[in-house]
């Protein structure tokens, strides 16, 4: 797992390397998916072409809030203390099931993980933000019949979003 190694090393090498990794993304070059082949000739109902759900998630600039994406809350705070013993091993196969590619959700997960551990700057990951992969060491919690993932002090609600599983940061349900 090349990507795991990269991320295990990154914290040890300190802020600069960690931030570089975040910016470049894992997967050798940080390429994201810009489009997918259409899989059907006929449109189900509307003419919506639904193939591009994963395209706009990538925070190519971690220090910048201007990305047009659903992770708009993963913001400039994330470059603080990234090296603070966050084992950013997001190639967490237990929670990876989204098709191409590892890196399409990694930026969000990493940023949230970092933010969650920098309590001095940000008290928690921003409620309502959405990632496609969880940080490591999460546990499943079922509260009132609803499934959550608790990762440290951050809670996520998994859901099917289009064909993918995504995780929305929520307030602790208990």
């Amino acid at each position: 797992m090349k990507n795991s190694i990269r991320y295990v090393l990154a914290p040890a090498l300190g802020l600069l390397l960690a931030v570089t990794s975040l910016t470049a993304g894992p997967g050798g070059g940080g390429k994201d998916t810009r489009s997918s082949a259409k899989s059907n000739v006929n449109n189900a109902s509307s003419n919506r072409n639904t193939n591009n759900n994963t395209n706009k998630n990538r925070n190519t600039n971690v220090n910048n809030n201007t990305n047009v994406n659903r992770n708009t809350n993963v913001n400039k705070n994330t470059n603080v203390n990234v090296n603070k013993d966050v084992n950013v091993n997001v190639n967490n196969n237990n929670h990876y099931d989204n098709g191409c590619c590892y890196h399409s959700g990694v930026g969000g997960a990493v940023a949230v993980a970092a933010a969650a551990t920098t309590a001095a700057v940000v008290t928690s990951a921003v409620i309502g933000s959405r990632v496609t992969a969880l940080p490591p060491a999460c546990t499943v919690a079922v509260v009132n019949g609803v499934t959550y993932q608790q990762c440290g002090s951050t809670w996520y609600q998994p859901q099917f979003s289009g064909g993918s599983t995504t995780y929305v940061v929520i307030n602790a349900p208990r």
Partner: protein
Amino acid sequence: MKRNIGYTIAALLLATGLSAPLPAQDKAPEAMNALNYMGTYLRTLKDFQVEAVVTTEDVLTDGQKVQFGSKTNILAQLPSKLRVSVEGEQKSRLFLYDGSTFTLYARRVGYYATVPAPDTIGKLIDVVSEKYDIQIPLLDLFLWGGPKAGADEITSADDIGPGVVEGVTCEHYAFRQPGLDWQVWIQLGDHPLPRKLVLTTTTDEARPQHTSVLTWNLAPSYSEDAFVFDPPADAHKIVFAEVKDASAGN
């Protein structure tokens, strides 16, 4: 007489349409008929099983293409029962529909979600697309030959010639429509089934392709339980994000 000849030529050109730019539509009737024949036949099937060997491509930001393989298995009992399993290199999904509820199960992560569903596969395809942005794999098999088939989208249709898919003699057709070039190999004879589909997306200059090779079983044996979800002990129930949420920011 010179003048008359000139007028005659002009009239001929007008009559044949050559004086104007060629119309966008150039559809070989035999190709359109074959599509129609296939669709009509598909709509006569009461139950069937199809295994599809699929390869699909994603385009990365710099235009590089990457390919993924998967196997899709469909069991359908028209009009209201459906089981579709997708085992991909990076993704596994089970779609279950029993005529009243729809369940999506992601085996590798152990999540499933269940919602009430309409009473036909056709409506199900619409509802899950509109509401949850979910495409039922190979939904074309359920739309061709029906009112939702987008035959009027087609701008070009050709009969390419004879073809063979997995040893089955077929005729090979090619179509163009906005954003998509596609080909279908239709089995010759009394069972005009699509045996192979190649879809080339033309909205991206890298033109990613999606190929499905289909193996049909028109007399499947199955239990009604096949359409009912029985959650494994370690599965966790989650929810579907509705499109108005899912598309925020898109």
